[in-house]
């Protein structure tokens, strides 16, 4: 037996892993650290498949990642607080927000466990469940699912909803759902942080609400159109709106002061008439006005 040096105590696979990590870090612009706490390991391959050609997902020990990151010139002090628990590392040359958006659009589902809330409507479909008639029959009864027994198997008579989105899934239903292959609970990677060419982005920042961006785009557009209309910004499509607005203003003002000209008479008199009819109908059921208000 030769002397065992400190060096040789480190298993080869660890050295190899650090080497590989270094290589990936060096060729990637950014890395996202995601928690695997409570994340079903068998779902990782679906994410990998989804990210193919765009990013590489690896599950590594925090200590090994830290060494590789440090060796690659990353300021690991920025990252140390995220390097606890079991983590996955997503390496990419893309904008990390793009990866986050991409993953948020991709729904991963898992089987329910007792206590889970449904992420989508949970329906037991009509038909053969493949479950042998026996003690399970009473479970269906408890869940108020109408059944019949056919060829010794439990048949569900009608599609039956047992939980709506957000509702707790009855614990009794869990084995049935598994048997039927129904996965009503969503899982997603929880982002802790991203490191992008020296920039640290918090996990909460990485969550992008696209609807709020759409709303902001609309708001910005409304604002510029309102302002452009107000100053009559001289492009035809704005001036059209300005003209409409000016015309409406003029119509409203002439109505309000009862100013009549042949070109606004229709508007002004109609307006007075509409008000009269509105008032007439408001009291029409109490008073015989001697007129018929059309409803």
């Amino acid at each position, binding site marked *: 037996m030769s002397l065992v040096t400190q060096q040789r105590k480190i298993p080869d696979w660890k050295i190899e892993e650090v080497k590989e990590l270094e290589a990936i870090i060096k060729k990637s612009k950014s890395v996202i650290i995601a928690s695997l706490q409570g994340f079903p390991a068998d779902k990782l391959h679906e994410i990998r498949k989804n990210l193919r050609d765009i990013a590489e997902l690896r599950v590594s020990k925090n200590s090994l990642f830290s060494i590789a990151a440090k060796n690659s010139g990353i300021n690991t002090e920025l990252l140390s607080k995220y390097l606890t628990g079991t983590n996955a590392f997503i390496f990419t040359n893309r904008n990390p927000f793009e990866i986050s958006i991409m993953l948020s659009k991709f729904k991963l589902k898992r089987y329910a466990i007792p206590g889970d809330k449904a992420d989508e409507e949970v329906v037991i479909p009509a038909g053969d469940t493949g479950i042998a008639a026996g003690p399970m029959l009473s479970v269906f009864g408890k869940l108020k699912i109408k059944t019949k027994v056919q060829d010794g198997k439990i048949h569900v008579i009608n599609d039956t909803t047992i939980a709506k989105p957000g509702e707790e899934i009855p614990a009794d239903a869990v084995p049935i759902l598994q048997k039927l292959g129904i996965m009503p609970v969503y899982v997603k990677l929880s982002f802790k942080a991203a490191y992008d060419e020296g920039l640290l982005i918090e996990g909460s920042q990485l969550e992008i609400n696209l609807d709020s961006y759409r709303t902001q785009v609309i708001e910005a557009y409304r604002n510029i159109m309102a302002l452009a209309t107000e100053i009559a910004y001289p492009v035809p499509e704005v001036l059209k709106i300005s003209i409409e607005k000016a015309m409406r203003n003029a*119509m409203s003002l002439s*109505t309000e002061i009862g100013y009549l000209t042949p070109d606004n008479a*229709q*508007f002004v008199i*109609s*307006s*007075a*008439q*509409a*008000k*009269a*009819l*509105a*008032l*007439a109908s*408001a*009291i029409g059921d*109490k*008073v*015989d*006005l*001697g*007129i018929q208000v059309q409803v």
Partner: protein
Amino acid sequence: MEYIYASLLLHSAKKDITEDSLKNILVAAGISADDARVKAVVAALKEVNIDEVLKNAAAAPVAAVATAA
């Protein structure tokens, strides 16, 4: 509709809609005012928020113009 026009005339001028004020207008317009109807209209209008009713009616004429155009 005369009773309604007369009422709106008073409302628009920010005058109280009373049996007397309503009758005055109708008479001035050369219309023989029906006492019972005047009474009924005044009573009914007391229970209605006229401004509210008119505000909601404001949109209609625009539509009317459009259909005519």
